[in-house]
């Protein structure tokens, strides 16, 4: 879903860069207040895993491929605001080193593939925590469903940005974007739930949702 340069108007690109930069800046501020020294490696490893997994395009219907985005997984492990930092690190390296995603579209890409998904899943986790029992099955269901929703929300935002840029009418771009990303989102849900499930077995302390103490990075 990486938008290249040329798809967005300057106005839309700028209008996306502002909230994206704001969310990342807020994430960095939260880190300086809450990120414990022992969790510093978790941030680095999550970013590395997201980058690597994003390279693994899997085929979906009709000669199209999709890949893992990772905002949902990052939000579950680190909270939504630190997830914004993780996703911006990944997307900045992808754009500047690998020309994957435009430089002028960087704000939109951070917004679509990072901030929106992280906040959707962060909100969902918060809501689930207050109304649902704290059980493994619940966490995995929220992980999978949240990951799917994060991809759909990102695809919707991407379509709106393209329409507002005058690149393509919304009625033309939104239905196929949602159609193909409904499938890609299933992949996102499976990978996210599998990763959370594996961590719950190997290192449950890395998944803050299972900690008895409330996690300050999520609230």
């Amino acid at each position, binding site marked *: 879903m990486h938008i290249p340069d040329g798809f967005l108007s300057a106005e839309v690109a700028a209008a996306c860069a502002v909230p994206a930069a704001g969310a990342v800046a807020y994430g960095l501020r939260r880190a300086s207040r809450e990120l414990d020294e022992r969790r510093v490696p978790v941030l680095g490893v999550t970013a590395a895993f997201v*980058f690597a997994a994003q390279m693994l395009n899997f085929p979906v219907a009709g000669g199209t491929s999709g890949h893992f985005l990772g905002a949902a997984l990052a939000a579950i492990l680190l909270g939504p605001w630190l997830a914004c930092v993780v996703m911006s690190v990944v997307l900045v390296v992808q754009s500047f080193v690998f020309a994957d995603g435009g430089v002028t579209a960087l704000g939109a890409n951070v917004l679509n593939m990072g901030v929106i998904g992280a906040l959707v899943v962060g909100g969902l986790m918060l809501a689930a925590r207050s109304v649902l029992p704290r059980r493994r099955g619940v966490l995995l269901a929220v992980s999978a469903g949240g990951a799917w929703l994060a991809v759909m929300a990102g695809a919707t935002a991407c379509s709106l940005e393209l329409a507002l840029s005058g690149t393509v009418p919304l009625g033309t771009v939104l239905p196929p974007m949602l159609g*193909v990303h409904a499938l890609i989102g299933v992949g996102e849900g499976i990978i996210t739930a599998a990763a959370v499930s594996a961590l719950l077995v190997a290192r449950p302390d*890395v998944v803050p949702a299972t900690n008895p103490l409330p996690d300050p990075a999520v609230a």
Partner: protein
Amino acid sequence: MRVFTILALALAVGLGTALAPFASSSPDGLQTVASRTAFVDRGHSHEAPVAGYAFPGIRDARLATGLSGFTGTVAVFLVGYGVAALMRRRTT
């Protein structure tokens, strides 16, 4: 945490290096929609050291992708770790 970090990083580097060369090369969701709704030509890519995940100077396409995956995964880990280490909470 050190053992976890090393193992998890090894997994990520392994995926990026060994599996990435065999990933699907079909266009992704946005590219497909852009082609079908006729705005794909508006896009243009920019200069970058390893544009398109093809490591420069490597003829074998799979090797070039694997090397890009290795480099990128390690680079993202270092940047992410560095940012987190700089910004982390300091207890005085």
